[in-house]
């Protein structure tokens, strides 16, 4: 550090980027959320070319690069492909979730790709890859991914 700055205690300026966002879900995701909210149903799009069923539903098939026109129902039960357990209350974790928080990558029966969600009603130590889980729907549903409260082990 140059002599000219000796004895100078650097200042820190506290700030925050405060920009509100309204993300348009688009027709495809909206249809998914409406089914979730109003019928407690999980639906997905299917590629007409390769037959893949996408969760979350995709408007186009990323590999065939064509529009997905077909909708199919998928099960509210599936298999845990992998999981993660937060032990530290990391800043991104929502206020209403206290550690340990468990997330699972869950492949629902009838879908070819998996979604992220919470695993609950299970101890972290008891979660294993390959375990079967079932969706628990939220009491009040607003048309968001949290209309599913979490997934719990299938007894």
């Amino acid at each position, binding site marked *: 550090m140059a002599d000219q700055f000796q004895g100078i205690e650097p200042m820190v*300026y506290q700030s925050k980027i405060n920009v*509100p966002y309204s993300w*348009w*879900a*688009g027709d*495809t995701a909206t249809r998914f959320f409406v089914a979730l909210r109003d019928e407690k149903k999980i639906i997905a799009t299917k590629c007409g070319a390769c037959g893949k069923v996408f969760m979350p539903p995709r*408007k186009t098939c*990323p590999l065939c690069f064509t529009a997905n026109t077909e909708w199919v129902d998928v099960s509210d039960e599936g298999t845990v492909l992998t999981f993660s357990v937060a032990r530290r209350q990391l800043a991104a974790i929502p206020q209403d979730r206290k550690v340990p928080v468990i997330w699972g990558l869950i492949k629902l029966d009838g879908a070819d790709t998996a979604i992220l969600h919470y695993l609950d009603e299970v101890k972290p130590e008891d979660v294993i890859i390959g375990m079967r889980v079932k969706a628990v729907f939220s009491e009040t549903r607003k048309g968001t991914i949290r209309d599913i409260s979490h997934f719990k082990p299938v007894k």
Partner: protein
Amino acid sequence: MAKRVAIVGTGQTFHKSHRPDVNGQELINEAVQRALADANLTMKDINAILIGNMDHFEGINYVDCWSVDGSGGVMKPVIKITTGGTTGASLAVGGYHMVGSGMFEKVLIIGWEKNSESDTTGAITTAFDPIWDRQVFAGAISGLAAEAQAYMARYGASDRDAARVSVRDRKHAMNNPHAQLRKEISLEDVLASPMLADPIHLLDVCPRTDGACAVIMASEDTAEKICPNPDWIWGTGARHSYAYLGDCDWGRLTSMERVAKEIFKKAGIKEPRKELDVIEMYQPYSFAGLIWIEDMGIVGHGEGPQYVADGNTDMGGELPINPSGGVIACNPIGATGLIRCAEAAMQVMGKADARQVPDVNYAVSTGFGGCMWTDMLLHGKKKPN
């Protein structure tokens, strides 16, 4: 050896103020599909993808990674360029380098923005130094007002002179089905519209837009096989020289002057006013349509207002500017510079339909952003030497 580079296809969304029917990836996909169709290529033909937007307009980190379902980037090289308002033009310049390097035969370039998803002014304010400019300065409009005031003081122009530019661009937009604002306006409409920041009225400035644009560039090895009349890139350049608003020479756009001189010199263009056939300028407000053509070297300093008033830059005039309707009719920011490039390419390729300028040999497209920055491309019908 470096390769010569041409644009072989372009695609745009029908730009709107709000596109609630699609998310960002889906919006991108519309432009990409149209560009592929225009070039008669499929995603398999594309060797790399270059994408850009401005992060804080959508609040999505690592957009290049997030958008692959829409961009077609799954298992391909994807990189992101972002330079503020210049983003779209910087992307086009980047595509030119990536193809020119010989590393990629065909590159897909995507610029997009969903400005409806955030507070545009709030996000732009965060572009300025958090300790200095950000605290005393709000959004893009105040910088532009400073430029307009300085220009009027230096050269005696009026807000009526500027309004003429808005009238022109909005008239041109009537010919462009992709433009957002397609309604003609009069000088009186502009002058009677609400004052945003003296001397800038509401109808002097660009709108907020949701839109995406995709451009496909190919090297000289295949360009003419893909497209009988490709748009050859003759030169590119960028000057992002200022970081603080107080650094600028207000009333002149130094970045434009420097980049134009460099490109015209390289291409052997001595009299741009005579040799260029059309310009698609990133002109976010009307005064820029007077000031920046002076800095580009089309006319002398202070001569912009008369040149525009005489109709020289209208369709059918000596040097039509913004046949697309330009930024005043449509501004999905991260796409805007690339739309200028695509529109210039369409003019050279003869694909501009109702907004076609006859016999275009040379076209210029520009990008504007950052702290009075300019990016620029020179397009031509002939293959460069």
